[in-house]
């Protein structure tokens, strides 16, 4: 935050600012001192904001034409695709936008894991981020149900049935969630309602996420605390805004590639078959971004066990800041942890792959190995490696020589280039 108080130049500005300090907020956001060595992995926060707003704007338009009724939903989606002006474009942006949103959020999360952005003093930012991620999954799942295709219906059936695994009250809870004795019209109606609500909850949490970020300021690739403002920082505008804009545009090119040239490649063809409660698809698979968790769920032969493990896979992330015992934030200076980080990335990708495959034979074995490793990484690897690892020398500041060892005054510079 700026040292000096912002004083508006105009009289009207001063009048408003004395009553509601909006201009002070604007000045704070503009001047916000940002580490100058942030690399492109740091541009995904802005990209995610764009994704959220895109989903909200396209979603509001879609909701003007969509009909949340079991008999009419599928037809109303076709109406959007065929009769609404640019309805196909709006819907394809929305459906592919969900995938792009998750692509960006996974990169954002793994960036945080690599550079230790979840560690003190940024635990609250991390936890709010995870809450956003949870809500994103809920919103995406319910959104996928709305076209009322085969995968919508059966995906909803599989996921809501998970709650029936809860002892004693499971069946009652499931019936309560459905609003019926199976996934049916009441389910579709409430999913639509919640699907419309959740993005605004996310928006609120995003404000808190950014607010919490602006207290300690950004982490950076070197992972050290920096003086703010100093020669290690640049004002957010224009330096970060222009860089975020550039990264966002590159992202938009990829996004547009999907929307205009392969709009259905990320979806499942079965979802163009209207929902039929009497015909179960050969393989029920969730959207790609939920596949790793689906693999964890199916790796356990017991339903309740699978459900517990799947939710644990997400909730374990909430205590990550306290599982990580290393005093060094950035994996750039953690030679051992760095390798485990990449093993985790491969592990999650593998879980995603087997999540799309039938739960049998070698896939089941891989899913189990992957699941065990996933938990080992957080419960064992992170505390133990953090405790035992000999980290590399850390620079004193982004642009100054290293603190210990001292042999390589250029290391900070090298780090800068490397990451």
């Amino acid at each position, binding site marked *: 935050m700026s040292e000096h108080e912002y004083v508006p130049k105009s009289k009207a500005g001063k009048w408003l600012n004395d009553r509601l300090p909006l201009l002070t907020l604007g000045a704070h956001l503009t001047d916000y001192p940002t580490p100058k060595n942030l690399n*492109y992995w740091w541009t995904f926060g802005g990209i995610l904001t764009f994704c959220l707003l895109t989903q909200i704007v396209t979603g509001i338009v879609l909701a003007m034409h969509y009909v949340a009724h079991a008999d009419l939903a599928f037809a109303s989606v076709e109406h959007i695709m065929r009769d609404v002006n640019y309805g196909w474009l709006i819907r394809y942006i929305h459906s592919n936008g969900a995938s792009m949103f998750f692509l960006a959020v996974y990169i954002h999360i793994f960036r945080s894991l690599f550079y230790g952005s979840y560690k003190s003093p940024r635990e609250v930012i991390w936890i709010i981020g995870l809450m956003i991620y949870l809500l994103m999954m809920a919103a995406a799942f319910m959104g996928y149900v709305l076209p009322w295709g085969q995968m919508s219906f059966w995906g909803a059936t599989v996921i809501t049935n998970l709650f029936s695994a809860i002892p004693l009250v499971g069946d009652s809870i499931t019936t309560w969630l459905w609003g019926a004795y199976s996934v049916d019209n009441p389910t579709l109606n409430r999913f639509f309602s919640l699907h419309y609500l959740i993005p605004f909850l996310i928006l609120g949490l995003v404000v808190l996420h950014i607010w919490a970020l602006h207290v300690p300021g950004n982490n950076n690739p070197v992972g050290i605390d920096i003086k703010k403002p100093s020669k290690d920082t640049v004002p957010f505008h224009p330096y970060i805004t222009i860089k975020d804009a550039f990264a966002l545009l590159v992202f938009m090119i990829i996004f547009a590639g999907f929307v205009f*040239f392969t709009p259905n490649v990320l979806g499942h063809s079965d979802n163009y078959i209207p929902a039929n409660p009497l015909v179960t698809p050969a393989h029920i698979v969730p959207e790609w971004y939920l596949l790793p968790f689906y693999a964890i769920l199916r790796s356990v032969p017991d339903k309740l066990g699978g459900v517990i493990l799947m939710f644990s896979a997400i909730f374990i992330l909430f205590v990550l800041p306290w599982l990580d015992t290393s005093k060094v934030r950035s994996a750039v200076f953690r030679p051992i942890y760095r390798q485990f980080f990449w093993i985790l990335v491969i592990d999650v990708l*593998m879980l995603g792959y087997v999540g799309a495959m039938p739960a049998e034979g070698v896939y089941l074995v891989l899913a189990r190995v992957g699941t065990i490793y996933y938990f080992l990484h957080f419960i064992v690897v992170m505390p133990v490696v953090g405790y035992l690892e000999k980290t590399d020398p850390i620079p004193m500041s982004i642009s100054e020589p290293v603190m210990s060892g001292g042999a390589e005054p250029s290391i900070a510079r090298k780090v800068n280039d490397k990451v």
Partner: protein
Amino acid sequence: MTKSKLGLSVLSLLLLISFKPLQSAEMVDPIKVDWSFKGLTGTFDRASLQRGFQVYKEVCASCHSMQYLSYRNLGEPGGPEFSEQEVKAIAASFEIEDGPDAQGEMFTRPGKPSDKFKSPYPNVQAATAANGGAYPPDMSVLVKARKGGANYIYSVLVGYEDPPPGVKLDDGVYYNKYMAGNKIKMPNNLMDGLVEYADGTESTVDQMAKDVTTFLAWAAEPELEERHKTGVKVIIYLVLLTLLVYLSMKKIWSRIDTEV
């Protein structure tokens, strides 16, 4: 920067590979056809669409509905592009049920371009009952609803064979090389010379299968041509804007000692 960019593309690629779709064991891969609507700038072959509509109307439509299409779509840009008169004539050749009138009675009238395609059966149950217990699926989005898309639909249409020895088929079940499970309840309806094409094209089974598949591909994605055209423009615009923003970024960051 190059490194992080490379890493980014590798990561996105891996994410995409990680959800490779499922494949059932019995299926033979569909025949790969070099469709004119493939690729970034693909468009539909207008003549093929019109012939395909003829095949649909004379062969498929007796069992399959296409309830999400309207007759007016046949005249819209990017589709078969029949003339206004032709579309009116096509629509008028169907008797459409309308009503209720002022007396509360349903009545029929000749179709209008704004009417939806007339379905052969009043409901799914009637269609199922009339077809040996197998519902002939609505064909509006069929190409999008099948893995393999147009290639798969074409392959099934030309994939009828005598069953291999040892495979017993029930009455009303046919053997098809490309159908999942190889058993299909739709008989082989295409035979050489079945329809008389208005444009004089020889109506071989292969020709009809290609034409009707093209028609179905358009029916499933009537926006395809506009989508491709707009997409090229959007990408060119974004690339140019990215370039400008990149240069601006370089300029702005040149004020400080850090590379961007």
